[in-house]
Each structure stands twice: as C-alpha cells, then as structure tokens.
C-alpha cells in the first residue's frame, strides 16, 4: 500500500504540469470514444463520426510527438495528409450512405444486410 500511495502522490505532482503524456492520454480517451461509437452505433453517420474521432486522436499524437519528440515538422506534415484523407473518406462514405438510404430507406448498419436484391 505504501508504494501505491507513493505512485499516487507522484501522479498528482505530475498532473498539473502539462507535458507530452497529457496530450497522449487525452488522445487515448478520444480514441476509445471513437471506437465505442464505431462498435455500438446503429446509424451509419454516427459510425462515421466515430471514425473522425479516431482520426483526430491519431492526429493529436502525431502533432504532440512533433512538438515534444524528435519528429519535428514531419509529424505535422503527416497530420495534414491525415486531414486530407479524412475529407475524402467523409465525402465518399456519405455518398455511399445516401445511396444506401435510397435503396433500403434506412441507414441502420445492422439492417442493411443484403448484397443484392
């Protein structure tokens, strides 16, 4: 128990001074939230929002390592390409969702289960 309280006091002393790990932990929380949305949501657009959350979490990591690690501006360049591809993905996925809606009259991903009518 003594070691546990030592770890806890070290943690509370570490907490107010924002460093690399603070950003990484926030991005871990955002990643898990996006994962939860992808797994549980029935509405296809909300699944897409989960994907966006996951991409943003990854981007926070890239930029944080660009600031604190040895990645320098290469991390930010990679983050730019992630944003570009996220825009492409959103456009294509929403087009597919609209098409699915025209065909099935629903976009709940668990009801769209037939390949061909």
């Amino acid at each position, binding site marked *: 128990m003594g070691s546990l309280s030592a770890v806890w006091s070290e943690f509370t002393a570490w907490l*107010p*001074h*924002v*460093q*690399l*790990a*603070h*950003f*990484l*932990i*926030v991005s*871990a*929380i*955002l*990643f*898990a*939230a*996006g*994962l*939860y*949305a992808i*797994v*549980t949501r*029935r*509405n296809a*657009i*909300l699944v897409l*929002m*989960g994907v*966006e*959350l996951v991409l*943003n979490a990854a*981007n*926070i990591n890239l*930029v*944080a390592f*660009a*600031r604190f*690690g040895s990645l320098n501006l290469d991390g*930010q*360049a990679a983050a*730019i*390409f992630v*944003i*570009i*591809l*996220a*825009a*492409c*993905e959103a*456009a*294509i996925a*929403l*087009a597919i*969702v*609209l*098409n699915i*809606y025209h065909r099935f009259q629903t976009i*709940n991903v*668990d009801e769209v289960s037939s390949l061909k009518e």
Partner: protein
Amino acid sequence: MEMFDIIFYVFAVVAVVSAGIVVFSRNVLYAAFSLVFTLFSVAAFYALLQADFLAVTQVLIYVGGIVVLMLFGLMLTNNVVSVDIRGGAVQTIPALIITAMVAGSLAGVFYSTWSKTPVAPLSASSTTPTLGSMLMTSYLLPFEVASVVLLVSLIGAAMIARRHRKA
C-alpha cells in the same frame, strides 16, 4: 499551474465531455453539434502544440467541411420533421468494457513511457512557411498524390450520390 496548463485542462474537459455526448447521445443532431466542440478543442490542442497552420486547417476542413457534410447526411437520411431522429445503440455493455480497457491500457502505456519527457523549448516562429516548403520539396510526391485522390474521391462521391436514372 501556469496559463498553458489551465488552458489545456479547459480544452481537455471540453473535448472529453463533448466526445462523450457524441458517443452516448440519443439524439443524432446533438451528437453532430457536440462533434463540433470536440473538433474545436482538438484545434486548440494543435495551437497549444505550436501547430498553428494545422489548427486553422482543422477548423476550416473539419468544422467547416466535414461536420457540415455530416449534418447534410443526417438531414437527408433521417425524417427530421416527422419521427425517428434517434440513433440507437447495440451491444453497449461489452463495448463499454472493451473500450474502457483499451483506453486504460493506452493511457497507462503513455503515462509509464512518456511521463518523464522533458519539455521542449518554445519557439516563437510560425510553422507555416516551413511546412509549405516541406510540402513542395520532401513531401512533393505525397502532396500531388493527395491532390489526385481528392479530385477522384469528390468526382466519385458525386457519381455515387447521384440518383440513378432508369436506363
């Protein structure tokens, strides 16, 4: 607690709470609008990490583009005026357990590995000129490929989303 830390914690709370609303809200419109707040606070993180160009890009593309696109999608595919605006959820308990484990293990690894990182010195210069010249030199090929990918995906999206005429 300096100003930097206070600002970080404000935006961290905003990001986590609004991400929770995105994930747990029953109303899909509330989810879409709180996604705006999440993306804004991610832009604030970029600004705190001295990625000024990325922060602006985040606001322009995500908040101005992607979220608006998703709102269009929601409006076109849900019967907003009549009935069903709810987005249900399936398998919530197992998913909650699994994602909590994922978040906990990731955060634990991050904390145990990177918590002792020394703070890098602040540099006052803007990153935009350097990033621009990097995109034109060492990242020229990915930059051009990305432009072609954007063009093709937008044309493809327009083709897919168009109502097909009966031939």
